[in-house]
């Protein structure tokens, strides 16, 4: 979900990327002007974000982990992490946290070079990442601002029960909405929320169509490296807005046109000439060497046809949509359905479905060194997916935003080995 302006120069861009860039830049400008305009903001996280609800109070969302990844793409994360380590945060702590804290301590300059406002409210929608909770504890101390926590029950056995739904809805009514009312000075307006959720559902339909376009061969998109751009607006500040509806309509048209012409994805170095491998990828990408990382795949003709990272802010491809007729209930279901809130068997089930439905050559896991909540159990998942699909798995390791944990030679070596392993298997040992 990066802003393309943050990556290296002379990249090939799709029209949708330029549109996305402008949307995100405008949002950051609005945040930067908040002290003058009086706009209030809510810091919250991508998984389980309640953007429509926040925006229905005319509050602006700020997403610290997106700021962290943007800092990494701008080459700032190394110094921010160093600042956080100086404050006493150890090397093993989530690097999103350290990058964000370092940014805060260095003047809170956001991705567009403008200063971000202090939070008026910290809204923690707890969807499986324990570190998020600690992160906001630190921010609460730092900013001395109100905090509201939505506790989202874990989908341990893979189902959402009525009592789970009720539990979340009750919290939304009794805790979250009053907190948003207090900060904004506005009354909860359910009619407005319904309108926004209707727009969310329209954008979600188009996003799913975009992601499903990867079923075609060659795939017109890369659902991981390209995918992070596609999810940008809907996972951050724009779900429920007219701009998001327009963006996803345009993106869908663009992708469908590429599919119609039988074209492959556009990479930063130009259109991919030949699709040689179709992969499903699990785990976030590395942001500090994002372009180099993508190039390693593109150079080998490896296209990611489905990824789980593009589901951390919402799983829409198995039918879930925000529902204007059940506003708080559907927000509750959305939160519980986020990828980070799913059990290991459910994640395996998803990966197997992707491999089969997108006819992928196998599953590649990018295991993130400083993210235990994502990485725990991944090797077990890999083996299980291999067993169920008969397609080989690959495993690489990097980090979110700490450049010290990106070893290009090692990753390239493993990736090439994995791709050659696929090739060898295809040829039955003759390659």
């Amino acid at each position, binding site marked *: 979900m990066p802003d393309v302006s943050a990556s290296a120069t002379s990249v090939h861009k799709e029209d949708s990327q330029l549109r996305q860039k402008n949307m995100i830049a405008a949002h950051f400008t609005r945040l930067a002007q908040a002290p003058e305009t009086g706009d209030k903001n809510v810091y919250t996280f991508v998984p389980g974000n309640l953007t429509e609800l926040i925006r229905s109070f005319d509050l602006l969302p700020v997403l610290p982990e997106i700021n962290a990844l943007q800092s990494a793409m701008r080459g700032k994360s190394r110094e921010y992490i160093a600042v956080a380590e100086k404050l006493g945060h150890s090397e093993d702590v989530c690097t999103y946290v350290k990058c964000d804290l370092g940014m805060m301590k260095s003047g809170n300059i956001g991705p567009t070079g403008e200063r971000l406002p202090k939070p008026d409210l910290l809204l923690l929608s707890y969807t499986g990442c324990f570190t998020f909770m600690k992160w906001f504890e630190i921010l609460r101390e730092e900013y001395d601002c109100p905090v509201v926590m939505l506790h989202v029950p874990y989908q341990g056995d893979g189902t959402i029960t009525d009592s789970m739904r009720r539990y979340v809805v009750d919290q939304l009514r009794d805790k979250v909405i009053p907190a948003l009312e207090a900060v904004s000075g506005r009354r909860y307006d359910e009619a407005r929320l319904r309108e926004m959720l209707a727009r969310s559902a329209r954008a979600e339909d188009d996003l799913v169509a975009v992601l499903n376009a990867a079923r075609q061969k060659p795939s017109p998109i890369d659902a991981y490296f390209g995918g992070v751009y596609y999810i940008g607006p809907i996972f951050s500040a724009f779900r429920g807005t007219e701009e998001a509806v327009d963006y996803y309509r345009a993106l869908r048209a663009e992708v469908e046109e590429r599919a119609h012409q039988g074209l492959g994805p556009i990479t930063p170095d130009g259109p991919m000439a030949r699709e040689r491998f179709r992969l499903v990828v699990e785990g976030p990408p590395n942001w500090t060497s994002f372009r180099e990382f993508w190039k390693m795949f593109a150079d080998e003709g490896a296209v990611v046809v489905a990824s789980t990272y593009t589901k951390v802010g919402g799983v829409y491809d198995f039918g879930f949509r925000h529902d204007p007729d059940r506003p708080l209930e559907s927000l509750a279901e959305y939160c519980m359905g986020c990828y980070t809130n799913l059990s290991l068997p459910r994640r395996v089930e998803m990966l197997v479905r992707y491999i089969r439905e997108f006819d992928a050559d196998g599953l590649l896991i990018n295991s993130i060194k400083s993210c235990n909540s994502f990485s725990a159990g991944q090797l077990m998942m890999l083996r299980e997916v*291999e067993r169920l699909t008969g397609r*080989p798995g690959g495993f690489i*390791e990097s980090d979110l935003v700490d450049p010290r944990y990106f*070893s290009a030679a090692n990753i390239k*070596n493993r990736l*090439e*080995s994995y791709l050659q392993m696929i090739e060898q298997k295809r040829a039955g040992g003759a390659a």
Partner: protein
Amino acid sequence: MKLNVGIDLGSTTTKALILGEDGDVLGRGITNSRSNYKVACDVALCEAMINVRFALLSAALECAGAATTWNQMDRLELAFRREQYLAQLAMLAEVLRSFITRRDADGVARVVDEILSRMERDADAMFQPGAKRKSDFFRDLAGSIYLRLAEELARSEGVPFDRLVGLFDKAILDVENRPADAENFGLHVGAALVALPEVPPALRGAVAEAAAVPLEVTCSVGTGYGRATLPFPKDQIRSEILCHGLGAHAMFPATRTVLDIGGQDTKAIQVDERGIVTSFQMNDRCAAGCGRYLGYIADEMNMSLQELGPMACQSSRPVRINSTCTVFAGAELRERLSLGEKREDILAGLHRAIILRAMSLLARSGGVSSEFTFTGGVARNPAAVRALQSLVGENYGDVKMNISPDSIYTGALGAALFARREGLRGPAAEPALEERKTA
């Protein structure tokens, strides 16, 4: 004769392996030259080509039914190696002399000449039947003698020892970077024949026959860390994971798990009954617990790498070393020494620490299945092998473990097998290393 070549550009050594038309291994070459990958590749390939000639020579003798000349064959090869060594020594002399300047103290040139003349004199003893050489690499062989003589003569002649060492360090790089001339088979074998006291006509005939066979490289495949620098088209480059898997399968066809501990990485690989890799794990950014770790420990203990394993095997009470971090292990080593622990016990603990790290990779790659093949330079270390056997036994029960004496060539063998497959498909569009068609 059509040949297929596999090159494994490792972080510590570069290996070349040559397969004949029927897939037999005809030659192997290895170098520790790291100054330049291209040179390292040339040196290893040259060496392998020389071995091909010797393989042809053996075959020619066998054809001629000259069974009695095996002893002569060994002598010829030793004489050949001596000639090779002398040629490199002559090159070293030339370069050393060119580096001596007017600013050098009186006597430096004289001492260098004296060292070189003694080295030349000692060469005969080094290549006698049964003589032990600590290394097969010219740098190591010449280096250890040069340094010993430099120390002795610097003291007696009053010239600066540091200057003598500096000259060698500079000169050896040049010598390593000029591989081909000194290793010409025809030239050295001719000199070797002259040097031998008596040469049966059958041997002389077989040499002529072997030297005359035209050698043509059909296809080359490269692997190893430096593979991207090889002058091969992309489809002639293979990952070392695949090459080690296939190489181990070729050496021991029942192999299902391969552990390769090389200079800077450790790989745990699972292969199927055709040698196809089904899963693998390798160390990430940190090279702790790889071959370099042992190199570092050897330096810390002022021992040669080859001496570490045998000494560790003498241990009766291995010390528990917790750190596989190379630097921390060095600190732990010094601490243990200061506490009075025996060197062999500390070394045994260090070997176990390396293998424990490998065990974790093995577990993550899918465990250890019989047969289990251990490859890479560390497989030549008896203490590492012993620790591995013990830990594999504890964790996976009775597993057959294979170690080939040529385990260091496993990756190059895999690459050569891939080259052979490519070669069988048709002539390579761009024959690699064309200039090395004949040695």
